[in-house]
């Protein structure tokens, strides 16, 4: 015998209620995953785009600076929603996981099968660990302030070392026509991109040239500091979104 549910609804038993809640999960979770895949893909294409599409664009100055700033936006906004309404430390991991999934599908279908680029030239970088950093930090500190101060800083700081295991092999030097290049540069030259000439790449263009050869650590620390502010800002945007009446009505 099941207990009656004291509500004036079509659900009359706790078993039915549980079943309806499960059905709600089964409906909402896939939809949210698809939504994150779509939104994040567009967002990332607009803000990072070629920096992540091509192996010869992921330089040590701009790519590790632009990418964390762009990749922190949705984890912060949706992270606030998931934490505030459900106490789920999932905003970072889930959104970036969805981005990575969509990126791999898109690179394979669009860049490889349709446009004929070899996958080893267009594979997406690994970002999902950055989401884990944000989520774990939020869970452990339960503070937006410290998650930004430590977690968002680590996102900027670690994006390059996190990807170095797959990028290092592309930075092995090659000589071509008497010019020093890397394997990644050879990809960029040999695999023809009609509308992406060499001059469009933004490589090594910045003023961070102090501290000798320590270009990447300096960029990483700089990206980390900038990303703290960036994270706090988007958390604030997320908090405004959650307060919005239309969101409350939906939730």
């Amino acid at each position, binding site marked *: 015998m099941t207990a009656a549910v004291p509500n004036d609804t079509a659900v009359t038993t706790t078993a039915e209620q549980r079943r309806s*809640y499960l059905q709600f999960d089964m409906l909402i979770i896939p939809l949210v995953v698809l939504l994150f895949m779509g939104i994040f893909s567009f967002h990332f294409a607009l803000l990072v785009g070629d920096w992540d599409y091509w192996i010869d664009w992921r330089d040590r100055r701009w790519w590790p600076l632009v990418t964390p700033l762009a990749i922190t936006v949705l984890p912060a906004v949706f992270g606030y929603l998931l934490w505030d309404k459900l106490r789920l430390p999932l905003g970072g991991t889930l959104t970036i996981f969805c981005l990575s999934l969509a990126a791999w599908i898109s690179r394979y279908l669009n860049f490889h099968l349709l446009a004929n680029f070899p*996958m080893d030239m267009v594979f997406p970088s690994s970002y999902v660990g950055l989401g884990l950093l944000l989520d774990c930090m939020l869970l452990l500190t339960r503070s937006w302030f410290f998650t930004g101060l430590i977690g968002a800083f680590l996102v900027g700081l670690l994006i390059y070392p*996190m990807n170095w295991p797959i990028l290092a*092999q592309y930075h092995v030097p090659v000589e071509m026509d008497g010019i020093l290049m890397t*394997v990644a540069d050879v990809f960029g030259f040999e695999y023809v991109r009609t509308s992406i000439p060499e001059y469009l*790449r933004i490589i090594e263009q910045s003023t961070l040239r102090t501290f000798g050869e320590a270009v990447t650590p300096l960029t990483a620390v700089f990206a980390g500091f900038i990303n703290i502010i960036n994270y706090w800002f988007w958390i604030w945007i997320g908090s405004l979104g959650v307060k919005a009446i239309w969101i409350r009505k939906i939730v």
Partner: protein
Amino acid sequence: MRFSAVLALIFLVLSVLIPSLAEAHGERAQQPALRMRTVEWFDVSVSTKQLQVNDILVVKGSFVPSNYWPEHVHSIEGASYLNIGVPGPTFVRLDSRINGTPGIRSTAFHKGELYNFEITLKARKPGKYHIHPLINVESAGPVIGPGIWVEVTGSEAQFTNTAKTLLGQTVDMEHYNFGHTVAWSALWMLIAAAWIVYWLFSRRPLIVPRFKRVSELGQDADAILTPTDRRLGLLFLIITLSVTMGGYLYANDRWPITTPLQTGKVHTPPAVQAPMPLEVTMGEARYRIPGRSFRIELTVSNKSDRPLSIGEFSAGNLRFINSKVLDIKPTDEDDLVAPDALRVEGSPIPAGETRKLVIYADDAMWETQRMTTMIASPDAVIAGMLFFYDDQGKRYYAEIGGPMIPVFG
């Protein structure tokens, strides 16, 4: 209404099921002013029109950046790059040279100077391709040259492309350590998936009960988090930092010698041009729209010791041939050569004389190649290249340009 909807649906389905073959690169879509007044291409040729996967194709030719480059278009003298217009990497580019200088990096080309180029390609994917040389100009876009059809047969699976590093390793460019890349990416995805599964699927049902509970707890909502949750958070944080650092050290150990991505801009010296023993000034130029006829008045001074005749007028990759001087036929159905479309009044020009000539370039190509929209140009200036031949077949060229007046009736 319903009939229209059905028609629209049928059209949609058909347009998806029967896609038309995209055979060109939109060269006709470019403004005529852009085509006529940016780069004068000539002598573009390919080493072969039939080849197998892995065979070499050499695209050669010459170009002169126009002296009449539009003021409203960014100059080629800034940053530019000799490229090849093929549908994606259906070929790989093994070498590119402009006047002998490697064209790997960006450069600058100077107006009025001659550049001879040679691009070496290797066929990668079977198909029929319209290959164009092109020059990307920073902030202006691609300036496309004449196209030539090439057919590649064979199997894509047989394609090979290798590079040798300075450390002596031979790199397979098609599958370079891709298993390693996938494994590393999969490792991160698995770690993340474990985190997601724990939070989404270890408590079922999740969303509604959790939302209610968090709402009930209000300021004390953190109480919903269990000690296991926190221990797991710490564990995943340690795993994330350990994998990051471990991977970084592993990569440094496996690839100890690396260099940053390389870039830069190279200087490409112009070719030494033989002195042209002629001077050409363009007078009145009128384009008669209904007749698709261009009438251009010229003053030509022949400073050579032989008579000169105009054999060809080339503008925006359209070639108008004077059949009395040259016998040139289109090499394929899309070769923009009009073999008998140039009429010259007043030619040949005797040695040492200055003469006024009138040329008529009459052909439907003006229309079919959408050059008639030149009347919409913001400055109504045209340019083109004239090719002169002496009685021994020696060729000279001169660029002409100036204002154009349309004739509507």
